[in-house]
């Protein structure tokens, strides 16, 4: 092994240096907690999606006439096809679970603050591309929800002033989602967006490594270096975090395996029932809803009575996340040392996001009937609560700005060195 390394380093010395810079001599804070697993989990899921995706592409037929049948061919005729497909669908949903938790970590510990604003922006771009990738992937099986979901989401673009309707026709390539739409979504989903995603992930990690990782105490570990020039509170990523992440990956894979092998559709959340019916432009499903991970944003769209404003609110709910590094003017990074009001606000935000998701996923009618009785006016009650939740969603960002810009926040003293427990 040593001889090979020597031979290699003589011929490509730069690569060895890259390995050192990003693994064995990348000093990460030693106080990472459970919230710090999700970045590496996301990378693992990305690899899973690419590998299983490539294999699915070997057997999938990207035409409106053949797509649905080809998915059944994969599930039944191709040896182990069902496993490859379920790994892909489970991976898609796990991707969003992991990414939402990863983003929440950022909000908790102020990982978006200077000097890491670029890391946050790149991450938000990844999130945006991921949503597009997932949306297009869901259209490919060409089930009835694929078709109607495509129709509804693409039609949103008609809200764009002046050329909205042309835009919609341009996206679809025809007048109702059909073959041209499917073919181009296939090309984008399989080739174009994965390449963009990979590039963004490389940039995201590159930007992070330039400035170094944040940590649950929000302290910059580079401020206290030892005689060897390394941060006193830092440890080399390899072997410490490679091994820790390996163990974490083990637990993560157990969860994924339980889903894949025992309940891959997760009661209709990961794989919707209406998609077992082939696309039919004459029959709309009883409830059109996107897959669960889009639910909070879908709820925001639905709760605004005007179509144009609804689309605007939907766009704003994502754009506002890009602005967080500039809305939050607090100097203290980590929630551990921030004012009580911020902790409460963030907790409320998380609950609001979850409840909006329940509305978007159409879970609320059952609850409303359960609480208010069978004669309840579901629409009015849902709209009332939903609109309050939408206001609270945006209020979080407004609150953060007011709270920090005008100096209302009372922070606790931030320690010099990170706090670890034995």
């Amino acid at each position, binding site marked *: 092994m040593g001889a090979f390394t020597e031979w290699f380093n003589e011929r490509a010395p730069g690569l060895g240096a890259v390995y050192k810079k990003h693994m064995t001599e990348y000093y990460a804070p030693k106080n990472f907690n459970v919230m710090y697993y999700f970045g590496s989990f996301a990378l693992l899921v990305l690899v899973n999606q690419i590998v299983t995706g490539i294999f699915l592409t070997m057997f999938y037929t990207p035409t409106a006439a053949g797509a649905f049948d080809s998915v059944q061919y994969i599930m039944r005729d191709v040896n182990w096809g069902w496993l490859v497909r379920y790994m892909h669908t489970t991976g898609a949903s796990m991707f969003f679970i992991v990414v939402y938790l990863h983003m929440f970590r950022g909000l908790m510990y102020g990982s978006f603050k200077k000097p890491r604003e670029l890391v946050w922006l790149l991450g938000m771009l990844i999130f945006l591309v991921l949503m597009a990738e997932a949306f297009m992937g869901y259209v490919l099986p060409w089930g009835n929800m694929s078709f109607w979901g495509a129709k509804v989401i693409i039609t949103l673009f008609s809200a764009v002033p002046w050329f909205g309707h042309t835009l919609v026709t341009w996206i679809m390539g025809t007048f109702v989602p059909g073959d041209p739409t499917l073919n181009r979504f296939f090309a984008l989903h399989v080739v174009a967006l994965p390449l963009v995603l990979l590039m963004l992930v490389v940039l995201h990690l590159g930007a992070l490594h330039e400035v170094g990782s944040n940590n649950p105490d929000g302290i910059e570990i580079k401020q206290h270096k030892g005689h060897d020039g390394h941060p006193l509170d830092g440890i080399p990523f390899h072997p410490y975090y490679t091994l820790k992440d*390996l163990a974490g990956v083990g637990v993560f894979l157990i969860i994924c*395996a339980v889903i894949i092998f025992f309940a891959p559709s997760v009661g209709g959340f990961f794989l919707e029932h209406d998609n077992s019916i082939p696309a039919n432009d004459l029959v709309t499903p009883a409830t059109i809803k996107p897959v669960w991970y889009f639910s909070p944003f879908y709820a925001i769209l639905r709760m605004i009575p005007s179509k144009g404003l609804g689309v605007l609110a939907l766009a704003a709910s994502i754009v506002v996340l890009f602005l967080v590094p500039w809305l939050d003017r607090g100097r203290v990074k980590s929630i551990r040392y921030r004012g009580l009001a911020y902790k409460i606000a963030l907790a409320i935000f998380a609950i609001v996001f979850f409840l909006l998701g329940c509305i978007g996923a159409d879970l609320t009618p059952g609850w409303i009937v359960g609480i208010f009785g069978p004669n309840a006016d579901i629409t009015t009650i849902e709209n009332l609560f939903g609109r309050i939740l939408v206001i609270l969603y945006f209020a979080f960002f407004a609150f953060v700005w007011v709270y920090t810009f005008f100096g209302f926040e009372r922070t606790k003293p931030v320690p010099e060195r990170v706090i670890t427990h034995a």
Partner: protein
Amino acid sequence: MHDKTFRASVRILAAALLAMLVAFAAAPSALAEEGGYPNANVNVHDQGSLQRGARLFMNYCVGCHSLKYMRYSQMAEGLGLTEQQVMENLNFTGAKFGEPIISAMPEADAEKWLGKAPPDLSLEVSARGADWVAAYLKSFYLDPSTASGWNNTVFPNVAMPFPLWQLQGEQVPVMSPAEKGQPATIEELKLAHPGSMTPAQYDRAVRDLTAFLTFVSSPDELVRSRMGAWVVIYLVLFTLFALVLKKEYWKDVH
């Protein structure tokens, strides 16, 4: 102290998420919420049930309904039958062993005779849920106002005539007293003429037929859960080793 709160909240959250996951996975699917159909009690691991269900399907359903995504050979494998058993007892469509189960009824005629082509049922349980299918099969009743003379409380005005009336018998609706200005509604169904099966026997037959259709919707189910147990055992073993390895190296970190 913040650590303890944080760790406690993470544990509560993890437990809540896990509980939600288990609840969603184990509970009858969200479909049955609408109207709350009784649990069909389907067990796809009961080969006897699948075999009886297959025979019922071939005797009463395949005349009109195809299972175009299921091959006779795959059915044989899932039901634990030999090629000969399947070809002699379950193949009424004249297909070769490796070919899919396609109904003999030409689609053009089906539309002419019944008003609507009988749909393929390969994914019916996936689309509507086992509970719905079972409830549907038990809810036909005589209705002189329809073209076929039959109607169904689970699927009002369905075009399908009832093929299992010889087994279940014939049901008639019992109307609830009409309120002022409101049309009378069906309160329940009553067996007017008994069939060759008792209600308990028919219930079991419906359960078997639904089990068979559940198998047809996802044949991988038979293999999946068995394999899943081994995969989880392996992953637990791997995770334990990885954990011990991690702890060993982290002794360096203070």
